[in-house]
C-alpha cells in the first residue's frame, strides 16, 4: 500500500498538520470520496426517499437502497431486507434489546461478556431489569481471552440471548465468534455480535460467522457520523415488534391500532438519513478501491510495530499482556492479534496525564475507561491510555509515539 497516496485521500490528514491521529477506535478520519458523496447527494438527489413519485425522490430512494445493498454485500447478508439503517452501533444494539428483548420473560437468561463496551452491556443489563431476566457474565482471563470453557459455563438451558463483541475496544482481542455462535445456538439462544471494532478492520461475513444480529457504526470505518447498521436474520426481524414508531414504518393506522410495513422499513421510523447511508456506501467503495486485504495486511504490520514499541517502554504495562513482557520477548503475531488496539498504563502516571503530554507532542490517544468500566474493574485498573490504529497511520507516527511515551515519566517529575 502506498501510504502517502492513501493519506492524500484524507483532507484532515494531508492538510499539513503533523498530528499523529491514534484514536481510530473512537472514530476514523474520512476520505475525500466520502465527503464528496455526501455533497453530491445533497446537490443532485436530495428529497425525502421512499414516498415521492417525482424523479428527485426516486433518485434519493435509489441512492438510499443502493447503499443498503452495498452494506448487504459488504457483510455477506442474504438479503437487503436484513439490513436496517440506524444512527450508530449503540442504537442498533438498543433496538435489539427493546424489540427482541420484549419477547423475553422473567427467568430467561442473557449472557454478556465482561469485556463489552457499555453499548453492548447496558442495554442487556436494563433489559434484565425490565423483564426479570437474569444477566449472566462470560468471564475473560487476565489476558482478556474468553475461553470456550468460560463461555460454556455462562450458558444454561435458560439462555435466550448472548451478546459479545467480535473485537474488544480495550484489548483488541478477537473472540471466536463462529464457535461461540454455534454453542449459543445449541443452547437455544440467539447471538448478538457487536461488530463496531471488527467490521472496519477485517472482512466480516454474517452467514459464515453464523450470528443472528450484527451491529456496527459508519463513522468508525471512514463513513459519516449519524449512520449505523443493524443486520438481523429475517426470521427474527419478522417476529420482532417495531422499536421506533412513526412515518414510513406502517401499513395501516387507525384510531384503534396499526399494522407494520415490511422489512426493513418496519424498523426505520421517520425520515431516514439517506445522505449518511450514501456516505457509508462511499466508505465501503473506498475500502474496496484500496483493497480490504491490503488494509488488513497493513494494519497487522502497524500493530506488530506498535506492540513491539510499547512493550519496550519501561514502566509501561499493556492491558491483557503477560507481566513484564520485554521488547525482545515479544512473540511474532502478538501485535497483529490486537487489531491495532492497545490499552496501557504507565507506573505512577495517570492516563489523563499521559494523554495530555502526548497531545502536547501532537499525538492523539484516548485516556479513560473507554466505556468498559466492568472490564477495567475486572482487570483492576480504573483508567488506561489507549492507542488505536488505522491503515493510514505510519510507522513514523508509531515511533514518535514511542519516543514521546519514553519521555512522559521524566516530564512528570520522575527520575526515569
Amino acid at each position, binding site marked *: 500500500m502506498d501510504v502517502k497516496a492513501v493519506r492524500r485521500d484524507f483532507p484532515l490528514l494531508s492538510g499539513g498538520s503533523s498530528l499523529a491521529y491514534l484514536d481510530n477506535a473512537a472514530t476514523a478520519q474520512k476520505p475525500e470520496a466520502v465527503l464528496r458523496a455526501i455533497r453530491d447527494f445533497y446537490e443532485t438527489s436530495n428529497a425525502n426517499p421512499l414516498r415521492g413519485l417525482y424523479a428527485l425522490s426516486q433518485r434519493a430512494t435509489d441512492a438510499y437502497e443502493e447503499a443498503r445493498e452495498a452494506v448487504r454485500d459488504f457483510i455477506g447478508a442474504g438479503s437487503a431486507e436484513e439490513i436496517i439503517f440506524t444512527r450508530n452501533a449503540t442504537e442498533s444494539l438498543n433496538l435489539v434489546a427493546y424489540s427482541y428483548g420484549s419477547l423475553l420473560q422473567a427467568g430467561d437468561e442473557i449472557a454478556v461478556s465482561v469485556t463489552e463496551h457499555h453499548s453492548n452491556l447496558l442495554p442487556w443489563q436494563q433489559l434484565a431489569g425490565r423483564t426479570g431476566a437474569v444477566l449472566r457474565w462470560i468471564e475473560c482471563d487476565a489476558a482478556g481471552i474468553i475461553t470456550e470453557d468460560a463461555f460454556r459455563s455462562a450458558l444454561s438451558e435458560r439462555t435466550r440471548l448472548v451478546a459479545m463483541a467480535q473485537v474488544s475496544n480495550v484489548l483488541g482481542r478477537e473472540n471466536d465468534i463462529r464457535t461461540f455462535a454455534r454453542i449459543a445456538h445449541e443452547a437455544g439462544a440467539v447471538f448478538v455480535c457487536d461488530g463496531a471494532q471488527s467490521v472496519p478492520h477485517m472482512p466480516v461475513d454474517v452467514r459464515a460467522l453464523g450470528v443472528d444480529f450484527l451491529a456496527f457504526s459508519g463513522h468508525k470505518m471512514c463513513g459519516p457520523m449519524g449512520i449505523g447498521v443493524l443486520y438481523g436474520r429475517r426470521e427474527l426481524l419478522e417476529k420482532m415488534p417495531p422499536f421506533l414508531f412513526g412515518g414510513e414504518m406502517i401499513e395501516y393506522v387507525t384510531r384503534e391500532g396499526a399494522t407494520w410495513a415490511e422489512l426493513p422499513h418496519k424498523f426505520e421510523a421517520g425520515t431516514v438519513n439517506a445522505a449518511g447511508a450514501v456516505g457509508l456506501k462511499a466508505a465501503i467503495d473506498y475500502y474496496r478501491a484500496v483493497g480490504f486485504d491490503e488494509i488488513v495486511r497493513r494494519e497487522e504490520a502497524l500493530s506488530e510495530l506498535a506492540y513491539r514499541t510499547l512493550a519496550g517502554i519501561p514502566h509501561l504495562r499493556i492491558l491483557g499482556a503477560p507481566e513484564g513482557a520485554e521488547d525482545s520477548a515479544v512473540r511474532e503475531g502478538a501485535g497483529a492479534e490486537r487489531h491495532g488496539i492497545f490499552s496501557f498504563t504507565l507506573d505512577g502516571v495517570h492516563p*489523563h*496525564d499521559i494523554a*495530555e503530554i502526548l497531545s502536547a507532542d501532537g499525538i492523539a490517544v484516548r485516556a479513560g475507561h473507554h466505556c468498559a468500566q466492568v472490564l477495567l474493574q475486572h482487570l483492576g485498573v480504573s483508567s488506561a491510555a489507549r492507542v488505536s490504529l488505522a491503515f493510514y497511520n505510519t510507522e513514523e507516527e508509531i515511533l514518535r509515539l514511542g519516543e514521546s511515551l519514553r519521555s512522559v515519566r521524566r*516530564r*512528570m517529575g520522575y527520575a526515569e
Partner: protein
Amino acid sequence: MQNSFYREIINDHNLRPLHKHMLPRAQRELRGVNPSCGDDITLRLTVRDGVIEEGAYTGDGCAISQASADMMLDLVLGKTTEEALHLADIFLRMIKGGASAEEIGELEEAGSLIDVSHMPARVKCAVLGWHTLQNLLGEE
C-alpha cells in the same frame, strides 16, 4: 503550554504532596469522584471555632486533580470556613475564566492552575477538590 505546565508546581505537588495522608481525628470527611476519568479524592477536616485547624486528603487520580487538592489544603489550613469558601469561589471562577488578577493573587500557588481554563477536558480534574471542600463545608 502543557509541557511546561507539567514541569513546574503541579508535578511537585503530585509527586511530593504535603497533605496526602490519613487524618485519624478528622471530624468531617467527604469523597469526591470524577466518574469519567476515575479521579477520586477523600477530603478530611477538623474545624474548631469556625477555623480549619487540620486537613488532609487521600485518593487517586491525575496530577492535576491531586496537585490541586494539595495546593488547596495548603491555602485553607488555618483559615476560617468563610474564608475557605470565598477562596473556593474564586478558584472555580478562575477556572471558568471569570476571576480578576487581584482575586487570583489571593489563591497563591493554586493560582498557577489558571492554565486549566484553556484545557476544558481537565476542568473537572482541577475543581474536584474544591467542589468537595464546598460540599463538606456547606454540609453544616
